[in-house]
């Protein structure tokens, strides 16, 4: 809502208040101010001129040489390109020295040998947007009224001597979507009672509205109030300057007297109006009803609208002539030939208007006011005011009487509450008198007893209904910034992270320590990316009405996003990238209403782990880099003993020979492996290693209380063993045989060498392990260790045909 300060001062005394200060007060008391535009000081030398001569220039098809009287000693010579410039017109003249809003600086100059010492301006050149300039003035200069005073500043004529405050009105304060509403609000801030001119209608007593029209409403819930007046013997004109000026400056294009008045009254009262060309109505009956199925209406914008039961229509003789509250029909709209107008002021059910406006994508100033509610106390006043103004501007007469349906009467609301309740809510110590004064500023009457007050709220503040609403009014009138500052005085229970939250933080710090940086990617992605890399079967959860293909489905895996991130960085000369992400993935489950929402941890690494430097050779990341990180993380989570890895070639996106399923408690909980070389090539990546783990279950595990194990007192003994086995034998299988057959004292097994090549048969490998034996109770005897060691050897030979070396 754009508020003219001059217009506002028709209701209130704003002398001595700077618009900027007023805007600040409005912001701090109730309504956010988006912007304040101040009078156009740079346009001071833009004056009213009269065109004395206008001669076509011989060597141009559109330029005219004009002499313009601007109140100086001599008329000014100006070359003008506007098609509509004519002798005798009062026009807007920018004299040398003026800088126009579009940056153009006016200078004395010569055009094709003719002096041009100024410029005759269009409204656009003074900063008005195309959409608000009257149609007639769109293609040329703007013509001022005949009585405009030559040589005087043009600013008052076009409203640029005014300041405009742009209000950002929240849905609860639709009462301020009108100048009168803003008048009350600003009055409350300044402790002034706004005064509005009284509206009187001069009716033609001989002619009654019944002679023209009768109105009815099918369902009073849809249209609790519907009123109509008739104005006759009209001449539809261009509106006077004052009206055009008011509309243009708040962003509405002047059209003609009838349309301009309906807009003007809507701005003043917040009451949308609609004018029908009475002669285009074929019947004397207006009925408001729901549209029938398959009914249609050609609206003002020449579109055929297919209607249905959700739409409310104004019908004439059974035929729809307007979409109630949204848009009029083409056939009945006012034209310059209109002589009689049927003017509608109504109250429509907001949800019906909302639905219609939304489904037909026809949001307007009118429909949004019906959606947000309006002041039921001024429906008829607005109608009267508009009817009189239309009659005045078009030298017509208002027919006597109002055709109406009026199912509700405007009523004050009373809210009773205890003063303690106010103080309790705000933390204040207000006394009754103070509260009464605050309500008085808002124009709300109060009745008080010792402990309670009853506030009478007029219909113009339909947002107020309950105690909390009154408390809010008290608070904003008192001033939020005068409230004390305290902290809740509740018992103090220390807050703490849940075990899961703590583990997530530990996980993040661990991953960062291990060299991975955290990323946060979009959860919405393409359908294809959403399911790529997922271990979960099925289609992703996708949006009903996505904005783009790029963001249409919810990710089922974090890896697509992570890989995009890796690719983005590699494409920017970043050779090595290590990222991790922890976040939600979404799995559709047809048996459940909601998708499963799981927390996953994923990592992606490419390039080198150690970059070549003056001391070290480059070390590239490999499968075991990724696995090593996970192994250490499982230790941190306390589940390293429960985790195993199984080779898998079941996942298309992964290297079939370099990928393992991570198994925990007999369930696959994740994958670690190499991105399939073909996919890597597609993304222009070198070897890239990935992991992704469903961490929800893992993080929820109750960790066993850690009990300290005493550092061994007795020395351990170690043995090395090396043997040759088939290449296909897994390290895990060897370890499990060793553990089963190694005896009680075998504490740790460490692989220290793996060799294939010279001196080893093809398809065989040599493995060497270091075994540590220890007895916490006593020193181990050599013979015991030797005995256990021999048993282990035998088992390896028997199980794997190992050749001990």
């Amino acid at each position, binding site marked *: 809502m754009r508020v003219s300060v001059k217009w506002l001062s028709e209701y209130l005394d704003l002398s001595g208040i700077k618009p900027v200060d007023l805007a600040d007060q409005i*912001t*701090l008391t109730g309504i*956010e101010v988006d912007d304040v535009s101040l009078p156009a000081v740079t346009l001071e030398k833009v004056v009213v001129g009269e065109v004395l001569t206008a001669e076509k220039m011989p060597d141009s098809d559109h330029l005219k040489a004009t002499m313009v009287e601007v109140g100086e000693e001599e008329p000014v010579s100006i070359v003008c390109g506007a098609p509509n410039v004519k002798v005798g017109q009062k026009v807007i003249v920018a004299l040398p020295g003026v800088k126009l809003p579009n940056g153009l600086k006016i200078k004395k100059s010569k055009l094709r040998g003719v002096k041009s010492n100024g410029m005759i301006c269009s409204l656009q050149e003074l900063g008005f947007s195309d959409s608000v300039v009257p149609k007639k003035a769109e293609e040329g200069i703007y013509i001022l009224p005949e009585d405009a005073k030559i040589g005087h500043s043009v600013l008052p004529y076009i409203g640029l001597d005014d300041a405009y405050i742009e209000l950002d009105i*929240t*849905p*609860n*304060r639709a009462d301020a979507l009108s100048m009168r509403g803003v008048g009350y609000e600003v009055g409350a801030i300044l402790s002034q009672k706004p005064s509005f001119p009284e509206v009187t209608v001069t009716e033609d007593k001989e002619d009654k509205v019944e002679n023209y029209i009768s109105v009815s409403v099918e369902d009073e819930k849809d249209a609790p109030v519907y009123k109509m007046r008739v104005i006759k013997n009209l001449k539809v004109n261009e509106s006077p300057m004052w009206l055009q000026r008011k509309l243009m400056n708040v962003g509405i294009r002047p059209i003609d007297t009838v349309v301009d008045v309906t807009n003007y009254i809507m701005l003043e009262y917040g009451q949308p109006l609609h004018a029908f060309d009475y002669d285009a109505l074929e019947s004397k009956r207006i009925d408001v009803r729901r549209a029938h199925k398959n009914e249609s209406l050609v609206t003002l914008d020449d579109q055929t609208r297919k209607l249905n039961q959700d739409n409310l229509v104004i019908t004439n003789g059974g035929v729809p002539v307007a979409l109630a509250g949204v848009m009029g029909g083409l056939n009945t709209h006012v034209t310059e030939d209109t002589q009689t107008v049927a003017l509608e002021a109504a109250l429509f059910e*907001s*949800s019906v208007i909302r*639905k219609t406006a939304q489904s037909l994508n026809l949001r307007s100033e009118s429909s949004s006011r019906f959606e*947000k509610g309006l002041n039921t106390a001024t429906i008829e006043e607005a109608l009267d005011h508009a009817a009189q103004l239309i009659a005045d501007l078009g030298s017509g007469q208002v027919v006597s009487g109002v055709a109406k349906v009026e199912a509700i009467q405007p009523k004050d609301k009373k809210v009773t509450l205890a003063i303690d309740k106010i103080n*309790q809510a*705000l*933390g204040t110590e207000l006394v009754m008198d103070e509260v009464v004064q605050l309500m008085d500023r808002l124009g709300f009457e109060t009745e008080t007893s010792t402990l309670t007050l009853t506030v009478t709220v007029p219909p113009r503040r339909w947002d107020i209904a309950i105690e*909390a*609403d009154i*408390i*809010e009014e008290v*608070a*904003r009138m008192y001033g*939020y*910034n005068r409230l004390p*500052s*305290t*902290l*809740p005085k*509740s*018992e103090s*229970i*220390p*807050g*703490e*992270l*849940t075990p899961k939250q703590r583990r997530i933080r530990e996980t*993040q710090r661990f991953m960062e320590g*291990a*060299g991975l*940086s*955290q990323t*946060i990617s*979009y*959860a*919405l992605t393409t359908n294809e990316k959403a399911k790529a890399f997922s271990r979960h079967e099925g289609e992703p*959860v996708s*949006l*009903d009405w996505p904005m783009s293909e790029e*963001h249409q489905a*919810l990710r089922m895996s974090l890896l697509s996003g992570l890989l995009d991130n890796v690719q*983005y*960085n590699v494409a*920017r000369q*970043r050779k090595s*990238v*290590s990222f*991790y992400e922890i976040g939600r993935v979404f799995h559709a489950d047809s048996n459940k*209403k*909601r998708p499963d929402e799981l927390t996953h941890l994923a990592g992606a690494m490419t390039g080198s782990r150690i970059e070549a*430097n*003056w*001391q070290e050779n480059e070390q590239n990341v490999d499968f075991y880099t990724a696995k090593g990180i996970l192994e250490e993380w499982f230790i941190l989570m306390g589940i390293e003993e429960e985790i195993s890895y199984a080779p898998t070639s079941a996942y298309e996106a992964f290297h079939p020979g370099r990928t393992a399923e991570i198994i925990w408690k007999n369930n696959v909980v994740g994958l670690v492996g190499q991105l399939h070389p073909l996919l890597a090539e597609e993304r222009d990546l070198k070897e890239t290693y990935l992991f992704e783990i469903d961490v929800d279950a893992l993080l929820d595990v109750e960790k066993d209380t850690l009990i300290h194990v005493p550092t061994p007192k007795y020395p351990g003994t170690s043995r090395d063993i090396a043997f040759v086995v088939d290449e296909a034998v897994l390290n895990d299988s060897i370890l499990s045989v060793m553990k089963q057959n190694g005896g009680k004292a075998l504490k740790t097994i460490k692989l220290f060498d793996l060799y294939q090549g010279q001196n080893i048969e093809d398809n065989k490998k040599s493995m060497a392990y270091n075994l540590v034996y220890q007895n916490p109770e006593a020193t181990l005897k050599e013979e015991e260790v030797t005995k256990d060691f021999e048993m282990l050897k035998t088992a390896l030979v028997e199980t794997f045909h190992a050749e001990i070396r």
Partner: protein
Amino acid sequence: MEMEKKLATLLEKAKQEISEAKDLKEIENLRIKYLGKKGEVTSLLKGMKDLSPKERPVIGKKANEVRDALTVILSEVKGKREKEKLEKQLAEETIDVTLPGKSITTGQPHVMTQIIEEIEDLFLGMGYQIIEGTEVETDYYNFERVNLPQNHPARDMQDTFYITSELLLRTHTSPVQARILEKHDFTKGPLKMISPGKVYRRDTDDATHSHQFHQIEGLVIDENITMADLKGTLELLAQKMFGKEREIRLRPSYFPFTEPSVEVDVSCFKCAGKGCRVCKQTGWIEILGAGMTHPHVLEMSGIDSNKYGGFAFGMGPDRIAMLKYGVNDIRNFYLNDQRFLEQFKRKG
């Protein structure tokens, strides 16, 4: 006195040789040569038996003096040579300490994580719990339970990604509050919670809009909670995030789930309120929305709004990070350009 003379000569000769010894081995050899069992001092003293009884103690004393003197000088020279050896070794071991160290690669948390954890820690310290909730929500919890029924005009304020007519991507973290409100047992104490997480809006991504961003909302419900408590809490928050000298300013606003509702500005941390580009010359920067929990919201969760009341507040970590670090494009947070991310390695 011949004996005495011999001892003196021996001493001089030994002193000379010892002082010229080049290394520890030579010193040891000299020790054996002079002071060993078969050393020169010992063999010289063998001649003592030929001396007169009167002379013997004199020469014996003299011989001991020579022995002591040699021991001292041996140890002195030995110490000196040891020191020289160490010095030589250290000199040889000297390296160029200005060469670069071996690289340790560490990653860093995303800047958003840093901001969120900072806020979480502040509220944990004040006894709040952290509750996350789900990102896919029902229309009912996302809208109706926060006082935004179907056809409520304020639904325009949030354009929503719907999955079905009932399911959507949450547009704020408020549904978490609604869910906790219905579960909380007030006989066990007040409810104090914050809910951080991702939220989604139907917005075209540009420098200031993102279809995915973060939010942290807070909620306190108890008996006797006042708007002054809200103000005090938010003051602490503003000072923690933007510096001790910050002030806050409350402006009336509208949120369906609170009444009164306020928008909260913090005094500009760039210009300390004088007016600059960051604060658009106003001296204030909007950082939060807040208010007193609407009685309907409590009633919908089965809580007696006459007995209990409280406040709620919400903020956007993305916006806070943009303000705090001068990031001018919100898309940077989701682009994951390492050059951007690693700037936040250093903790402010």
